[in-house]
């Protein structure tokens, strides 16, 4: 369609609604659309924020007076642990992801994210995991070892109740959601930008989210591994962190902070992305130093991984090693400062308009810079030793996290509010809300630096009078209640604006990015037609873009085929390569997440038989999910496209699934490398590390198993090469043969494990090897299952020369599985022998 007739345009949109529209009632559980999922993340995160905020109020009430007995010590421990846990895992990360899920397709000119069912699955995992975790609070059995769960305090000896299990299982469940969102965002940004949007044209917010998503992909797996190991120690007695049996509690700290420090930047980067989006709009000029900002985003993403030990300066690491991390901790301030100078230069050269989003942006600048400066102070080892575990640190990280995440988040909420509701906020209430929070925050936390310098430790439930802490604590508590009043005011403003807010006109802030070229609020498909974008400021260059999009003047204007489609483009230049067809609404993500929640609850209740059934049920749903793809009748059985358009991605050798597999393997590789790190770390450092005289695993059996695995991989590679040359003769027997060979490898591997002399409950050495073998068995089993599915799909004609895409995806899994096998062989069999020889 390409017309200016309003009636024709309306009919055109009705057709799109039939394909993309969201169902209501119970069927709303099947929605996979990114706009709805993003909003669900935001609203759920908001609810968790209020719960976390109430816990903060309890903490401040308890500490307002010396000797206060509002909370018992046990409950206080649960309250501060859950405050940190909820704010970090259930509010901050999911809300930032929610914003990214909502905005990224709109900013890059796509109709949806690239794996919509994964978005929905991630949301349900987050919701169920969050409910499971917070339910422990209601039952008064919440985790109580601090949000970083240091061992041995969180181990079975010192935390015998189920609190730590709630944390470990609940957080791992929530992290599935975070990693799935990270993978999806990376692939969507790289492969679904609209026509012509090269890397150099990407809005800065998209750069920030790309960095954040990649950091999640690399940064979360170490904690997932740590949580698995600690839960195995608690539930199965495998002593990874028990010094007496060859473990080391400091390993937990390394694994936690390998995640924990990048986590700060995972929160800061999207927040800074909001600021870099908002300031230019309210200054009505492009941001100063686009390339400098991109440089600083990439640099922050990397260097933030080199700081984790600055959380561990007091555990007894050599001074020189501390100096390496101290230097890196100070260096990370430089890229952050580049961004701050870019924002100041933008303000300097523009004509700022102080609408509510700008107030929050300026509040962010003030608070975050102050928090950054105390961060540089803490990066100095001698200073850190003095204030470690005092309220100074609490004040510092609240300045960084509230300043660096909450203030920009509020700026973003006010900026995109017309997008969510189609209405404008009330400027008067918004200003009241801002000033109450700004004043309340500073009253609470500026004085808290002094409280810390006066020596008040963190995590104490009360204190004696006349230590000099009475007045500063009272001031902090008063400030926190002012802040709470500010939150209530903002909440009221946001709720009321849905009813009373002035209707937003098109592009109400005169923004420059594509997200403002949708209707307000947007339709489920964002854009009826997909515009070409060869500028960093498409709406400033072409203010009529929304009209031409609605009237069908751009790409992918056909909908009568009934498929949900968006462009698949070159990751560098934005040149169109294929049409990506997307799945529609489905129950599968909901039921898969529900079964996983059941698994989580069964593990908590120690009903292990039911847990196995739940795991199998969840796997069955996920396999069914993978079945409804490509040429399946519920996906894209008809490959016809408009003449001149590129082919559907499932009819090519490339596509989002292939990229999704690669990014998934990066996350998986991060987890595996963390496991290798754990092995080498314990070997080097653990004081009671015990190596048996003879290898506990039969080397020849393992070698023969690896030989079969490698043969399977070579066979698979040969099949792929033939498929690329359009040769599919005997493809199905080949796939069956590979499955059989892989299965033989798997049987031998399981046999080697079963016949080994491993005693995983006696030594950390054997426990780590057991985990490595189980990891390998799981991967080999999945490789076989995926290949069997390909053979079956070949029989149904879902795979073949006409649809050669999926075997390419599975091949990557085989490559990875073979790689991890030989690495395990090297570190378990070869390295100890070489070490003994030396």
């Amino acid at each position, binding site marked *: 369609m390409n017309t200016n007739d309003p009636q024709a345009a309306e009919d055109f949109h009705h057709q799109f609604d039939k394909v993309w529209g969201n169902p209501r009632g119970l069927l709303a559980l099947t929605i996979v659309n990114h706009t709805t999922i993003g909003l669900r993340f935001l609203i759920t995160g908001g609810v968790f924020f209020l719960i976390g905020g109430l816990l903060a109020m309890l903490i401040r009430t308890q500490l307002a007076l010396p000797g206060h007995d509002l909370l018992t010590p046990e409950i206080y421990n649960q309250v501060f642990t859950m405050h940190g846990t909820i704010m970090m895992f259930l509010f901050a990360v999911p809300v930032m992801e929610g914003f990214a899920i909502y905005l990224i397709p709109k900013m890059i000119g796509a109709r949806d994210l690239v794996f919509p069912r994964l978005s929905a699955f991630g949301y349900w995992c987050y919701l169920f995991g969050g409910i499971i975790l917070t339910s422990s609070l209601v039952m008064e059995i919440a985790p109580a070892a601090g949000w970083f769960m240091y061992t041995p305090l969180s181990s079975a000896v010192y935390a015998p109740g189920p609190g730590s299990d709630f944390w470990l299982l609940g957080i791992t469940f929530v992290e599935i959601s975070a990693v799935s969102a990270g993978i999806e965002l990376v692939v969507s940004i790289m492969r679904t930008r609209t026509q012509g949007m*090269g890397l*150099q*044209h990407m809005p800065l917010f998209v750069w920030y989210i790309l960095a954040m998503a990649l950091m999640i992909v690399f940064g979360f797996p170490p904690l997932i591994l740590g949580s698995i190991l600690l839960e195995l120690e608690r539930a199965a007695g495998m002593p990874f962190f028990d010094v007496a049996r060859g473990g080391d509690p400091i390993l937990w700290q390394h694994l936690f902070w390998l995640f924990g420090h990048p986590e700060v930047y995972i929160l800061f980067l999207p927040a800074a992305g909001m600021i870099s989006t908002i300031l230019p709009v309210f200054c009505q000029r492009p941001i100063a130093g686009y390339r400098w900002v991109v*440089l600083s985003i*990439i640099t922050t993403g990397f260097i933030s991984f080199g700081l984790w030990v600055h959380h561990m300066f007091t555990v007894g690491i050599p001074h020189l090693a501390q100096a390496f991390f101290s230097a*890196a901790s100070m*260096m990370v301030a430089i890229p952050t400062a580049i961004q701050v100078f870019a924002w100041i230069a933008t303000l300097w050269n523009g004509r700022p308009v102080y609408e509510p989003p700008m107030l929050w942006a300026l509040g962010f600048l003030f608070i975050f810079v102050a928090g950054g400066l105390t961060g540089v102070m803490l990066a100095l080892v001698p200073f850190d030793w003095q204030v470690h575990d005092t309220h100074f640190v609490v004040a510092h990280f609240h300045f960084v996290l509230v300043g660096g995440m909450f203030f920009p988040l509020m700026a973003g909420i006010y900026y995109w509010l017309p997008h969510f509701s189609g209405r404008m906020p009330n400027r008067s209430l918004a200003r009241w809300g801002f000033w109450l929070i700004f004043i309340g925050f500073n009253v609470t936390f500026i004085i808290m630096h002094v409280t810390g310098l006066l020596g008040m430790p963190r995590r104490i439930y009360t204190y004696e009078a006349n230590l000099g802490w009475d007045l500063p604590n009272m001031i902090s508590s008063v400030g926190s209640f002012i802040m709470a009043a500010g939150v209530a005011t903002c909440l009221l403003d946001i709720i009321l604006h849905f009813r009373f807010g002035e209707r937003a006109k098109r592009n109400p802030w005169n923004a420059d990015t594509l997200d403002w070229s949708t209707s307000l609020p947007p339709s489920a498909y964002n854009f009826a037609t997909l515009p070409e974008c060869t500028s*960093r400021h498409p709406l400033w260059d072409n203010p009529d873009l929304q009209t031409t999009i609605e009237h069908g003047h751009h790409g992918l204007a056909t909908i009568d085929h009934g498929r949900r489609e968006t462009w698949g483009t070159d990751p560098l230049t934005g040149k169109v390569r294929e049409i990506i067809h997307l799945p529609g609404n489905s129950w599968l993500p909901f039921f898969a997440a529900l079964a996983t929640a059941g698994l989580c609850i069964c593990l908590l209740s120690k009903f292990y038989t039911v847990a196995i059934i739940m795991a199998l049920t969840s796997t069955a749903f996920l396999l069914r999910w993978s079945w409804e793809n490509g040429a399946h009748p519920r996906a894209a059985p008809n490959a016809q496209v408009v003449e001149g358009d590129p082919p559907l991605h499932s009819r090519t050798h490339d596509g989002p699934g292939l990229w999704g597999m690669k990014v998934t393997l990066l996350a998986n590789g991060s987890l595996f490398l963390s496991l290798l790190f754990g092995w*080498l770390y314990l070997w*080097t450092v653990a004081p009671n590390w015990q190596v048996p005289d003879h290898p506990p695993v039969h080397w020849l059996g393992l070698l023969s198993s690896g030989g079969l695995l490698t043969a399977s991989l070579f066979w698979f590679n040969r099949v792929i090469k033939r498929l690329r040359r359009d040769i599919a003769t005997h493809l199905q027997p080949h796939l069956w043969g590979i499955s059989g060979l892989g299965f033989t490898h798997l049987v031998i591997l399981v046999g080697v494990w079963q016949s080994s002399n491993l005693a995983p409950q006696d030594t950390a050495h054997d426990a780590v090897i057991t985990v490595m073998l189980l990891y390998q068995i799981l991967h080999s089993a999945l490789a076989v299952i995926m290949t069997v599915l390909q053979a079956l799909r070949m029989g149904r004609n879902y795979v073949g020369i006409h649809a050669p895409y999926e075997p390419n995806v599975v091949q990557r899994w085989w490559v990875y599985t073979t790689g991890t096998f030989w690495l395990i062989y090297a570190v378990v069999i070869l390295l100890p022998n070489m070490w003994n020889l030396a």
Partner: protein
Amino acid sequence: MLSPFHPLQLTLGLVIWALYFVVLYAGLSISCQHFAPPEQSGAFNWVNIALLLLTFAVTLGLLFQARRGWHIIKLTKKTRPATPDHKQSASVPTTPQFINYVAVSIYVVAAMATLINGLPLVLLVPCI
């Protein structure tokens, strides 16, 4: 050699820095655990010297890469005009130009980061 316009160039400098950082920390930890030099030798001992040499080698390698990219920037500026963009901004480079610009900066940043990380080796005794 990897093309200066290859997208991996956007991160390669910092990937090298990250690998250097791992070798630095792991090398120090393993050396101190198994082959610790005597405390009296001060900062002038085989561990610090080996790690300093590594630091200089990595820094020089990164600077070499930056210089290579910079040379290409100068060449392409002469031959390829940038495409005009929004009236308020100067110009937007092509995708390869953009990759090269950012990559050169990344190499310089990575070289600086390597040098700064290695500086404590000049001053501090390794294993206390």
